[in-house]
């Protein structure tokens, strides 16, 4: 066991705390590593340092107020979280969302996916010791954040998707902003891609590191890019299409070996697909209302509903129970990061300390979502 005092152990392994304030744990995550020189003999993850009881808090808020809580789960893919929750309530109420609102949601959601993957790309490079990609990636992300600020008034905690649509219509100059943004963004993504994807040192560091086979990944409940890297073609947008995704042509990038590099590269290719979806949506977007319900107080009928959505990190599931009042009776979020993270002990065992950082980085976890 890991918790034992070193004296009781037969060899001279060192017990090392990686985190909660270690720079590469991507938040307040703690890993207890038993290392033999540079080799990790045993690893035990500890979570809960960011636990805020979001699901419990939600029971005391009105439906539209819960959106702000969802914003704070996966704090680098806010729109996607809001979206999943809003869809759950809409499904419970049988609300039809106006077409324009759906397009706006798709555009913002996909841009948020790009922003999230860019952040991943930069920090993953940083985990591997490359400083430049993080600067490149943040520049691209910054452009997206600026657009989000123009749309919603907030850089991160947007609270823009409302139940039945979006809070308000897009700003007047949205098309002009997008015309300027899209080529720049594509260039940013390409630059990061060119810099890192097929860099010899980077491939040597990540290829074959932290591999997992598809059955094990499925058994752990992996979803999103991490699962697709193992060769499983599962994307909620295709498997169980929601919103207006059926109208767009896009591929689901699938990897082969399920190692850290595949997880990275699936995300890189996904960014191009997302950009293409955004371009298609911008072309076919029409006018009209952006909100289905005018009233502020939302009171769904009694019942429960489960909704899944494709977040940048994988499948987010929202289980919502309503007792007919204006506040949710119970909310349970199935966060992708939590399931992806659950395999970390197995993945890290018998690798190097440096690999542990790479493997953890390649899972692209957000602790706000893991701890909730």
């Amino acid at each position, binding site marked *: 066991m890991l918790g034992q005092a070193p004296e009781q152990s037969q060899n001279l392994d*060192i*017990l*090392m705390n990686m985190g909660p304030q*270690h*720079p*590469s744990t991507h938040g307040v995550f703690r890993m207890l590593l038993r*290392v033999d*020189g*540079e080799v990790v003999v045993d690893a035990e993850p500890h979570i809960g340092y960011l636990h805020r009881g979001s699901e419990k808090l939600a029971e005391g808020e009105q439906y539209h107020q819960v959106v702000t809580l969802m914003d704070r789960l996966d704090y680098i893919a806010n729109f996607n979280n809001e979206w999943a929750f809003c869809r759950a309530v809409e499904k419970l109420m049988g609300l039809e969302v106006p077409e324009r609102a759906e397009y706006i949601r798709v555009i913002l959601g996909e841009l948020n996916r790009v922003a999230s993957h860019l952040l991943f790309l930069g920090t993953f*490079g*940083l*985990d*591997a*010791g*490359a*400083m*430049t990609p993080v*600067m*490149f990636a943040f*520049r691209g992300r910054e452009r997206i954040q600026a657009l989000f600020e123009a749309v919603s008034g907030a850089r991160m905690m947007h609270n823009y998707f409302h139940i039945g649509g979006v809070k308000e219509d897009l700003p007047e100059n949205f098309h002009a902003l997008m015309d300027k943004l899209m080529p720049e963004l594509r260039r940013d993504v*390409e630059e990061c*891609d*060119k*810099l*890192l*994807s*097929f*860099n*010899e*040192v*980077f*491939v*040597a*560091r990540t*290829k074959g590191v932290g591999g997992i086979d598809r059955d094990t990944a499925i058994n752990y409940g992996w979803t999103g890019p991490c699962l697709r890297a193992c060769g499983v073609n599962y994307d909620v947008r295709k498997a169980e299409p929601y919103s207006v995704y059926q109208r767009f042509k896009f591929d689901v990038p699938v990897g082969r070996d399920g190692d850290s590099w595949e997880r990275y*590269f699936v995300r890189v290719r996904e960014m*191009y697909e997302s950009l*293409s979806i955004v371009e298609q949506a911008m072309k076919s977007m029409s006018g009209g209302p952006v909100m289905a319900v005018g009233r502020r107080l939302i009171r769904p009928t009694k019942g429960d509903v489960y909704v899944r959505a494709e977040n940048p990190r994988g499948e987010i599931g929202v289980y919502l129970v309503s007792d007919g009042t204006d506040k949710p009776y119970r909310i349970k979020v199935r966060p992708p990061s939590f399931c992806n993270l659950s395999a970390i002990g197995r993945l890290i065992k018998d690798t*190097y*300390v*440096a*690999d542990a*950082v790479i493997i953890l980085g390649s899972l692209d976890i957000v602790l706000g979502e893991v701890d909730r």
Partner: protein
Amino acid sequence: MSEVLLLALALLIMFTALSVVVLSLVWIERKFLGRLQRRLGPTRVGPFGLLQPVADAIKLVTKEDLVPSQSDRLIFWIAPLLVLVPSFMVWVTIPAARDLVVQNLDLGLFVIIALLVVSILGLLLAGWGSANKYGALGGLRAAAQLVSYEVPLIMVVVAVAVLAGSLDLRAVSASQVPLDTAQDVLNEINAAGGVFNHEGIPFAVLFPLGLVLFLLAGLAEVGRIPFDIYFAESEIVGGPFVEYSGAHWSVFFLAEYMNTFLIAALASLLFLGGWYGPLLPEWVWFLIKTYFMVLVIFWIRGTFPRLRIDQLMSFGWKGMIPLSFAGVVMTSVYRFYDWPWWSMSLMSVATLAVAGYWLYRQFTLPVIKLARSYGREPGRAPSAR
């Protein structure tokens, strides 16, 4: 007595000059990396951010200097000095121009190598004395890395010494330029009973293998990306330096920049003809060549990820060390049989090509295949659909 005073003055001047050099390196690194990474670099503090290093220095000096309670205090205090003093002492014998040197030594290269090794002890003690597991791990990594890369560095220097027929840095530089330029050094060395082996060609041309090996081993000695595993901040959060703060940390920092400059200066002295050059004053040429090498080092830092320790070790022991021994054999054969100069270049380039091809097969080709299997070319963005 006056000689002692003169020496003290020279050392003081040298220390001042080195401080200025370190400040300039900090500034250049920020600006240059800013360019590479398309960000502003320091542009706010002073004109062109020139006051940024000064601001950094003030910040570091005024920062609280923490000593961990479990640490071995004596070792904790001495370790930074053990790193700094050798990197400072090395400069005593490095000529910035023909006569611009504190004390030129006949065994200059030997002294430099001997002093460089001491810093390993400092790093190891720093890591161990901090009573921190990351520190200990970093210290051990430092020992492993630096000892491994010390070997190819020394062997390349030996090869250069064989080429130049001298361990005197002035002789090494002078042997790389046309005879009329280096006549005075030639006379001086011959008068002192030394042997002057004049090649007249920069060793970068004569022995490119050496330059490549020297630069790589030098990077590893300085601990810069891609060889920065011993303080890898994303893995072991600074390694030996993790418990150091403020002024103590800045001493390590100072040593690192001094060593960077040292490696660049040695590369320019050993391979690029040192301070020799047309028109401009000698010391200007020395600085131009050295700063050029510094920029190369920073450039590598801006583009590469970090290697893992086992990859680094296998690269060092399986790649660098055999090649450096081959270099020694090559130069010895060339000198012993007195072959024409181009044969040396040819041998060197051929070895470099073979090694390069091996590296290509080992690392680049799999990456290219990987890229092709996804319908891509390395270093290119995918074509738009």
